[in-house]
């Protein structure tokens, strides 16, 4: 750790390794984004893409870049970052490496909200807002059910897993109720896909990230590290543990719900990105920003893989994250078990 000290009242403590990991992943994600924007039916070189992005390209290229391809890439970056950021929050708060929003029912809650709109019929805006509402309601429900003189990690996990099971059933039922065409659309949405995403998908998430990430980091970042040592220890150091948990969980649920609204419930990014980040930074604590950078990189990378793995046949990005994430989960369970942590 290094210390930057201007005066005694102004001092920062930084971890060079964590910063290096975060910055490297972010740069890789951006580089991959430029390549992604350049590829397609009208291929462009990275230089052309950059020129178009900075407003110095031909009108046609600028249209293709800013209106057609950029929104998809920005959505991917934001969804990845938001899922990973909230995954890091969940894992830290429940002190369990498996405590991620897709394991605890929040993602399924968002899916339920979306499916209700599919069954009843409605615009894609209605679908997205309903997904957000579904996620938030599930969050409130899980929080309320696990509340007993404070919310404890284990109870939150158990209630969350139960909620996930129930909602998975509800979602299956809703799917059988939907008209066939709509059900097909819904299944695609449920897999998680970035196809045809426009600025209307990316912007709400972008704004939420811009507001919530600094709020969580500045308001609760250091205190979250203390809560990892146990509620009593954190409280003895002056952390108001319950208030912190409520605020930070709310932020995490909001991000998950908005991410699901933008791209559907993309699985496993929230679970794997914080793990990968921690392995690379080797820093204790939630590693919030490095996780977000890893998440953004993962999702942009997975989307490219989904587009190119089978030429002429595009996969939804959720299939790729599901397959890779599932494999990672199995590997994680095996190693954590061997290390005696599970």
């Amino acid at each position, binding site marked *: *750790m290094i*210390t930057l*000290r201007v005066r*005694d*009242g*102004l*001092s*920062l*403590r930084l971890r060079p390794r964590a910063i290096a990991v975060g910055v490297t992943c972010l740069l890789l994600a951006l580089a991959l984004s430029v390549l992604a924007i350049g590829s397609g039916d009208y291929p462009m070189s990275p230089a052309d893409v950059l020129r178009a992005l900075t407003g110095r390209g031909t009108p046609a290229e600028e249209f293709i870049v800013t209106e057609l391809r950029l929104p998809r890439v920005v959505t991917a970056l934001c969804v990845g970052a938001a899922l990973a950021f909230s995954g890091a929050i969940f894992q830290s708060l429940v*002190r369990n490496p498996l405590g991620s929003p897709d394991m605890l029912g929040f993602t399924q809650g968002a899916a339920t909200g979306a499916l209700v709109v599919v069954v009843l019929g409605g615009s894609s805006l209605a679908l997205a807002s309903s997904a957000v509402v579904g996620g938030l309601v599930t969050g409130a429900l899980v929080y309320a059910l696990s509340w*007993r*003189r404070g919310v404890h990690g284990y109870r939150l996990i158990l209630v969350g897993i139960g909620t996930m099971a129930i909602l998975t059933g509800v979602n299956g039922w809703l799917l059988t109720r939907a008209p066939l065409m709509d059900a097909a659309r819904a299944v695609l949405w449920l897999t998680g896909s970035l196809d045809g995403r426009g600025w209307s998908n990316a912007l709400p998430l972008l704004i939420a990230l811009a507001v919530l990430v600094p709020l969580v980091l*500045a308001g609760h970042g*250091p*205190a979250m*590290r*203390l809560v*990892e*040592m*146990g509620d*009593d*220890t954190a*409280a*003895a*150091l*002056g*952390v*108001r543990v319950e208030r912190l948990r409520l605020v930070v969980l709310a932020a995490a649920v909001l991000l998950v719900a908005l991410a699901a609204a933008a791209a559907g419930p993309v699985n496993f990014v929230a679970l794997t990105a914080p793990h990968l980040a921690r392995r690379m930074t*080797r*820093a*204790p*604590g939630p590693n919030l920003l490095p996780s977000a950078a890893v998440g953004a990189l993962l999702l942009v990378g997975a989307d490219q893989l989904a587009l190119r793995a089978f030429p002429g046949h595009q996969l939804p990005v959720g299939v790729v994250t599901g397959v890779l994430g599932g494999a990672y989960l199995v590997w994680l369970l095996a190693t954590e078990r061997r290390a005696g*942590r599970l």
Partner: protein
Amino acid sequence: MQSRLSGTAMTLAYERRTIAQDLTVAVPDHSFTVIIGPNACGKSTLLRALSRLLKPTAGAVLLDGEDIHRLPARGVARTLGLLPQTSVAPDGIGVAELVARGRYPHQGLLRQWSREDERVVAQSMAATGVADLAERPVDELSGGQRQRVWIAMALAQQTPLLLLDEPTTYLDIAHQIEVLDLCARLHEEQGRTLVAVLHDLNHAARYATHLIAMREGRVVAAGAPREVVTAELVQEVFGLPCRVIDDPESGTPLVVPAARRRATSAPMVAAAGA
């Protein structure tokens, strides 16, 4: 008796289970107060209440004359420290980094690591004898070393009052004495007020300057160890017949449990069959 920390007419309860009613205690300033009593007598609950972790359903805990639950959390954490029974060291954290976390109530968003923080952390590690371990990961340490690291973290909080919940549990006898000697030194050299829950009566009698004996949620006796630790009181509080003699090492009271009378050398089986 001066007392910055006290509880008056407290009712302490978890959910619907009431642990103590109308409990009143005072921690004398600059004392090493030890709370003793049989299992489930409410001693850890009392410590939780005094440290703000448990809010009394009636009565109040007063810190410097004010209701502790009306004071700002960080302000309390600069006056009153607590070493809970169980703390989790995050994976891979180093000793110095863990101890540094005790500085949290003194830090801010833009004041993350002042010279004062650096000095206090070094001092706390020196006082607990873990300075040599500064760069070692906490999970590689022995139980005794780890407990000293946690105490160092609590010291770095720089609170005039420090509460310790069973600081010697899970330690072997040598490490128990090591931790208690450390506490005594902190009390004597740094003038801190210490409150500890201890299981071992003889440790309590040797190290405490003020004893609080509890049974079934009530304070049975409070005072200097010599006044509190008597054969009658041990019988009353623990239901243990014993003799109290002078500790040949320290001159403090030493509880010697009565020996089981073996009238004859008759085998157990015969006795049971009789």
